C-alpha cells in the first residue's frame, strides 16, 4: 500500500508560533499549548466537555463519534494517570487505541523520532497523543505529521500541559461558575511546572479575577509577573480571600539540586495543612494535578477532606480529553461552526 507523506511547508520564522494549532479554516487541529487558543476556543472545549461528562454518568459510557479512527498514545515519558485517562477518553469515543511506551522502546534502539513517527503513520493513525520530557516535542511532531493527523500535547518538559489546565478550568467552572470574581492561588514548584504554566494561560484567557502564585523565591520563574500574577512567598498572606487553591507536586530532585533545604522545611512553610487551609475562604476548593505527595505538599486530611476536588479532577479529565480529541479530529472537515 502506498503511503504518502506530504509535509506542510512551514516558514522558518512563523509570524505566530501557535498558528500551527489551526487548520486553514481556523479550526483547532492540534492542541499543543493554551497560548493562541483565546477565550473562544477554551470556552468551546469546556462547553463540549460538559456534554461528554454527562455521557460518563450513563450506564453505557460510550458514544460512536470516532468509530474507525485510531488514536496512538506516544509516551516518551512514563505517566499513569494522563495516559489512562487519554486511553479511556479515546475508547469512550469508540476509537481504537494503541499505547506505545517509547521510554523503553524503539527510540532507545537508536531509531530517530521521525522514523518512529512515519512507521506509526503507516499504521493509519489519526491522532497522536504525545508526552515527552523535552519542551517543544509535540510542536516538532505536529510540524512533521501527515495532513490528516492531529497531535495533542500530553505534557512536554517544563513547557505545557494543556489538557490538564483545561480540566482544572472545567472543574473550577463547575464549582464556582464565572471566573471574573475569583481569586486563584497556585502553590509550590511553579518554576519547573508545565501544569502551572498552562494553568496561568488558561485562567488568564478566561479572565480570572486575580491569579496568585505562592512559593519560595527559588521556585518562582523570573518572568512570571509578565503573566499578570501576584507573587507571594508567605502562605498566610497568599491564601487570604482565595476561592481556589491549586497545589503542585514537589519533585524530590529539586531538593537534590539545592533549590530547597528539605522536605520538612517545605511542608512547614508551604504544605497545605488544615491550619493553613483555614486562611482561605471557607468555601475554597482544593485542587492537585496528582500524584500528590502526602505530607510533602499536602496534608492527607486536606487531600481527602470536604474541600478537596482532586478525584473530581480525574473524572473530569476524561470528558475534557474527549472534547479535545473530537474537536481536533473535526479539523479539515469543513466544520460548520
Amino acid at each position, binding site marked *: 500500500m502506498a503511503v504518502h507523506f506530504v509535509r506542510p511547508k512551514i516558514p522558518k520564522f512563523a509570524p505566530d508560533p501557535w498558528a500551527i494549532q489551526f487548520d486553514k479554516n481556523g*479550526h483547532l487541529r492540534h492542541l499543543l499549548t493554551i497560548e493562541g487558543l483565546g477565550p473562544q476556543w477554551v470556552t*468551546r472545549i469546556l*462547553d*463540549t466537555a*460538559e*456534554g*461528554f*461528562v*454527562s*455521557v460518563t454518568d*450513563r*450506564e*453505557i459510557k*460510550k*458514544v*460512536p*463519534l*470516532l468509530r474507525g479512527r485510531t488514536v496512538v498514545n506516544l509516551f516518551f515519558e512514563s505517566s499513569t494517570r494522563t495516559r489512562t485517562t487519554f486511553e479511556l477518553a479515546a475508547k469512550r469515543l469508540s476509537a481504537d487505541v494503541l499505547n506505545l511506551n517509547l521510554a523503553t522502546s524503539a527510540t532507545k534502539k537508536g531509531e530517530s523520532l521521525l522514523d518512529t513517527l512515519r512507521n506509526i503513520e503507516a499504521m493509519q493513525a489519526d491522532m497522536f497523543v504525545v508526552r515527552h520530557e523535552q519542551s517543544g516535542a509535540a510542536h516538532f511532531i505536529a510540524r512533521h505529521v501527515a495532513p490528516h493527523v492531529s497531535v495533542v500535547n500530553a505534557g512536554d518538559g517544563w513547557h505545557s500541559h494543556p489538557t490538564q489546565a483545561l480540566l482544572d478550568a472545567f472543574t473550577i467552572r463547575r464549582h464556582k461558575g464565572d471566573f471574573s470574581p475569583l481569586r486563584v492561588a497556585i502553590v509550590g514548584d511553579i518554576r519547573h511546572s508545565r501544569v502551572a504554566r498552562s494553568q496561568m494561560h488558561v485562567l488568564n484567557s478566561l479572565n480570572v479575577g486575580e491569579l496568585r502564585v505562592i512559593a519560595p523565591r527559588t521556585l518562582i520563574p523570573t518572568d512570571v509577573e509578565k503573566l499578570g500574577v501576584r507573587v507571594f512567598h508567605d502562605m498566610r498572606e497568599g491564601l487570604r480571600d482565595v476561592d481556589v487553591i491549586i497545589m503542585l507536586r514537589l519533585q524530590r530532585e529539586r531538593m537534590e539540586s539545592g533549590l530547597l533545604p528539605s522536605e520538612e522545611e517545605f511542608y512547614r512553610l508551604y504544605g497545605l495543612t488544615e491550619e493553613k487551609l483555614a486562611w482561605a475562604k471557607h468555601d475554597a476548593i482544593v485542587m492537585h494535578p496528582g500524584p500528590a505527595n502526602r505530607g510533602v505538599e499536602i496534608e492527607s486530611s486536606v487531600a481527602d477532606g470536604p474541600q478537596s476536588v482532586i478525584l473530581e479532577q480525574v473524572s473530569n479529565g476524561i470528558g475534557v480529553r474527549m472534547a479535545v480529541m*473530537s*474537536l481536533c*479530529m*473535526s*479539523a479539515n*472537515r*469543513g*466544520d*460548520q*461552526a
Partner: protein
Amino acid sequence: MTPPDPLLPANEAIDRLETEIRAAQRRGEFVDPLIVGIHTGGVWVADALHRALGCSEPLGRLNITFYRDDFHTLGLHPQVSPSDLSVDVDGRDIILVDDVLFTGRTVRAAMNELFDYGRPRRIRLAVLYQRDGGELPICADWAGQRVTLGPDEQIHVDGPAPMTAHRVSSKES
C-alpha cells in the same frame, strides 16, 4: 413554483398532534409514557406534549451531536446543551418527539443514543411536521401535519414561546 400544501401554523399543528396522541392513549397504544424531545425544536414540542398529557416524570432531552452520521464530513457540531435523561428507560414506553421529520437520520441517531441509556419497551415517534424526502425506513406514528414541499424547500421552526413555523427556500438561506 407554489408547492401543493400550505403549512399549518405551529399552534394548530401542535393541537392536531395532541389530539392524535390522546386518541392513541385512549386506545391503549402506550402506557405511562416517558416523553423525550430532541434538541432543540423537538424539546419545545415535547414540552407542550408533556404538559398536555400531564406526565409526572421530568421531560427527557436528547442532544444527538455525538451520534450524528456526518462527523466524517462535517466534524463535531457545536453543542448547545447536553442530553438529560434522568429517568430509567428500561422497559418503558417512550414517545420520542422532534419538530420536523425529514431524512430520518436524526431519529436514527436519537434511537441509537436512547439504547445507550437502557432498553425501552417501545419507542413511538411524534413530530410536528413530517415532510417528504425520507432516506431511511422511519416514519412518524403521529404528526401534526404531513406535508410535501418543493425540492429546495425546508421547514424552519422557531421557539420556544410562541412556536412558529415557516417554509424557506434553501436557495435563499
